């Protein structure tokens, strides 16, 4: 790791002010991606600004038809929260499948979304549930937030404060884990809400995306069979030593069917 200065602001305002003055500073939350990146000398920030403990980023609550999760909430806390389990059990289940226990004890939802790793799990839930990412500056709809490989709508110095999930009628996530890293080789989040079904895919392409053909098919018939033979453009899918494009495309189909099958018979 290159030399750097560690800073721990007392409030979100202080953090934003520090970032504004130090353009080469980086925010640190759980550090599950940032610390390994620093150790590998793939990044060289002047400062790391530790916002993990900030009160403003804490808290999980269900109110007014929404589930609100503070950006600093750790994966373990989402997975074990009785509020999340009751409001959106698929989200708690997804959090329980991220990385390994030690990672879940440190990593946060805000950190995962700000990083937007193409194989991360949370982006699938946020996009699948049509959540809103609330920052220090504005509210960003999930459809606008994710912009491909490690890219998001966040501006310099903008900090994610919380994520607001509208409650779906039902939702499920199915993931094919990479056997070593635990990342999604393909993960599909399926949600059914009053205004239709949404299907969000992570792990397969350069960033999370909606499989719209599947959404239309599920709107007509919410059954695994409805997904048979649907078009799925895999031309930009990841093609690496772990899996080629065709294999990933097949995984997407299988995971999508499994997610829908999980919901069969549930209201």
């Amino acid at each position: 790791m290159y030399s750097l200065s560690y800073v721990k602001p007392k409030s979100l305002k202080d953090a934003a002010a520090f970032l504004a003055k130090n353009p080469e500073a980086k925010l640190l939350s759980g550090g599950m991606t940032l610390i390994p990146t620093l150790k590998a000398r793939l990044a060289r920030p002047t400062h790391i600004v530790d916002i993990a403990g900030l009160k403003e980023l804490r808290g999980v609550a269900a109110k007014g038809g929404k589930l609100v999760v503070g950006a600093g909430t750790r994966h373990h806390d989402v997975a074990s929260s009785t509020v999340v389990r009751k409001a959106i059990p698929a989200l708690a289940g997804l959090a329980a499948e991220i990385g390994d226990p030690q990672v879940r004890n440190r990593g946060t939802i805000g950190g995962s979304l700000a990083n937007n790793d193409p194989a991360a799990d949370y982006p699938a839930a946020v996009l699948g549930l049509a959540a809103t990412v609330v920052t220090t500056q504005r509210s960003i709809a999930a459809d606008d937030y994710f912009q491909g490989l490690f890219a998001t709508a966040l501006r310099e110095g903008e900090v994610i404060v919380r994520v607001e999930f509208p409650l779906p009628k039902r939702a499920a996530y199915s993931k094919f884990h990479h056997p070593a890293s635990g990342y999604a080789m393909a993960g599909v989040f399926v949600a059914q809400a009053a205004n239709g079904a949404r299907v969000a895919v992570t792990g397969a392409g350069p960033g999370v995306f909606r499989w719209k053909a599947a959404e239309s098919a599920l709107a007509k018939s919410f059954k695994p069979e409805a997904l048979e033979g649907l078009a799925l453009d895999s031309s930009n899918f990841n093609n690496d030593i772990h899996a080629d494009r065709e294999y990933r495309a097949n995984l997407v189909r299988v995971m999508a069917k499994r997610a829908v099958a999980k919901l069969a018979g549930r209201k």
Partner: protein
Amino acid sequence: MAKVTIKVNGKNQTRAVEDRMLLVDFLRDELRLTGTHVGCDTSQCGCCTVHVDGRAVKSCTMLAAQANGANVVTIEGLAKGKQLHPIQRAFSECHGLQCGFCTPGMIMATAGLLKDNPNPTDEQIYKGLEGNLCRCTGYINIVKAVKMSAKLLRGRKH
């Protein structure tokens, strides 16, 4: 430099360290608590697992500065004098190790797992130890040791 005070195995330890110092280096180099191992140094093997404020974490993936004010327990903090912690006893009795390098991390991860789930199934043990690797692949006895640990700890509570 960062001035940090970290409670390690019940005792406050104050040091001035480089901002970039990892927690594992703080434990090993500053405090000479070398039971916490560095296996892969890339957040994968879990040999460096310690508890920070009661939760198992990989100390190679956290800065000492991040642990400022925290309560850290390492493998050295488990035994009471010469009396082994029940999990240590179980790993010894079940021979849940071959070369032993991963053992401190396995034991700290097991302590974390059993805190959340005092009576895990085999499947839950596999998932609970997903963050720890045994390069000797001695997993069969490790799983046995976790089961015995669970039994000993449950017995202790009642």
